[in-house]
C-alpha cells in the first residue's frame, strides 16, 4: 500500500492533519487506520537506541515481574461543581448527552428531577449534587473545555441517570490508595462516600455504591 510520493508525511498534507483531500480517507476515516501512517510510525523504531538504554532495561528484566498492578480498582471519575467524585466502573453504564428531564407533577423535587429518555428507555433523573448538597458553580480545570454529561448508573436492576458537570473518564487506583475522609468533610458528603483517593491536584471522593443507590431509591418515594 505504500505509494510513491505519498510516503513523506502525507498525513500532514492530504490527510487528517492536512487538507483531508486523500481519496483513501473516505474509506478509512482517519489516517491512523491507514497502512502508510502505520508504516511511518513503525519506522520511528528503526533508530539507534541510546547507549544506556539496554543497561537500564536489563535491570528491569532481571527483576521479578511486577504483577501487583492487576489488582486495581477501576473507577469512573466525574465532577459535580467543585467536587471530583468516582464510582466503580462496574456500576457505570454510559455517559450521554445532557437533556432536560421531564418533570412529573407532584413527584419531582430537588433530588428527583424528572424522567429522561436514554436510547428509548425512560430513566429517573436524579440530582446527585442536591443529594450530596454540593454547591453548584465553579468550573473544572482551567484551559480545558468541560462537557456536561448525563451519566447512567445501574446496580441490581435499578437504573438512574444524573447530570455531571464533566466526566473525566476511567482511572485505576490500587485499593490501598484509598484514604479515610477528613474530619472537615460535610455530613451529606460523608454519608455517601467510602473514602478519598489523592488525585494529581485534587482529591477524588469514592462513592459508596450501596449507600448511593439506597439513597436514590429513597428519594423516589413521595
Amino acid at each position, binding site marked *: 500500500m505504500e505509494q510513491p510520493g505519498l510516503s513523506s508525511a502525507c498525513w500532514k498534507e492530504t490527510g487528517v492533519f492536512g487538507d483531508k483531500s486523500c481519496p483513501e480517507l473516505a474509506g478509512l476515516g482517519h489516517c491512523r487506520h491507514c497502512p502508510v501512517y502505520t508504516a511511518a510510525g513503525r519506522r520511528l*523504531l528503526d533508530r539507534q537506541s541510546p547507549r544506556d*538504554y539496554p543497561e537500564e532495561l536489563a535491570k528491569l528484566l532481571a527483576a521479578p515481574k511486577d504483577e501487583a498492578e492487576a489488582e486495581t480498582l477501576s473507577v469512573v471519575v466525574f465532577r459535580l461543581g467543585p467536587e471530583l467524585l468516582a464510582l466503580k466502573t462496574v456500576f457505570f453504564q454510559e455517559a450521554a448527552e445532557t437533556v432536560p428531564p421531564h418533570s412529573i407533577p407532584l413527584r419531582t423535587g430537588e433530588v428527583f428531577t424528572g424522567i429522561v429518555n436514554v436510547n428509548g428507555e425512560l430513566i429517573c433523573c436524579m440530582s446527585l449534587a442536591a443529594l450530596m448538597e454540593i454547591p453548584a458553580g465553579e468550573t473544572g480545570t482551567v484551559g480545558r473545555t468541560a462537557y456536561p454529561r448525563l451519566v447512567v448508573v445501574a446496580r441490581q436492576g435499578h437504573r438512574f441517570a444524573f447530570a455531571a458537570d464533566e466526566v473525566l473518564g476511567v482511572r485505576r487506583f490500587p485499593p490501598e490508595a484509598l484514604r479515610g475522609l477528613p474530619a472537615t468533610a460535610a455530613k451529606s458528603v460523608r454519608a455517601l462516600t467510602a473514602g478519598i483517593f489523592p488525585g494529581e491536584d485534587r482529591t477524588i471522593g469514592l462513592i459508596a455504591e450501596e449507600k448511593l443507590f439506597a439513597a436514590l431509591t429513597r428519594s423516589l418515594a413521595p
Partner: protein
Amino acid sequence: MLLLQFQAGNDRYGLDVAEVIEVVPRVTFRELPHAGPAVAGLINYRGTPVPVVDLTALITGIASRPFFSTRIILTDYPDRAGGHRVLGLMAERVTETVSCTEGDVQPLGVNLAAAPYLGGICLRPGGAILRVRVEDLLTPELRAALFTAAEDG
C-alpha cells in the same frame, strides 16, 4: 495461526506465537567466549540466565543492529530430555504480528540442509513470510553447547 514477524536482511520471517513466551526490549548481554557469532550472550531473565541467539546473525551472517525495533523474543524451547527451556532470540523489526490460517502456510518445497528451521511459507501481498520453527533453530552442536547443564541434570 498468528505469526510474530521479524526481519533479517531484507526479508520477513515469522515465529508461531504459540512458541513465544514474551517479547522484551534489547538489553545488555553477558558475552560468552567462543560461543560463535550467532550467540549474542546470556541475559538475566527474571533471575534466570537465558542464552540469546541472534537470528539476524544466524540467518544473514550479520549481527542485529542496535535499534529500538530490535527486540528479544523469549521462546519455549524443547530440549532433548523432554523438558522445556527458555531460549532468547534477538531479531530486528519485531513490531508486528500477522494473522494467517493453517491453509495460508504452504510447504516450502525446498529442504535446505543448512536451514532446517524453515517450516513453510506464507504468501502475503507485501511479500512472503518464511515461518521459522523454534525447535529446529539450533544446530545439534549449538543446542548441546547452550543446554548441556539441563540435559546432564
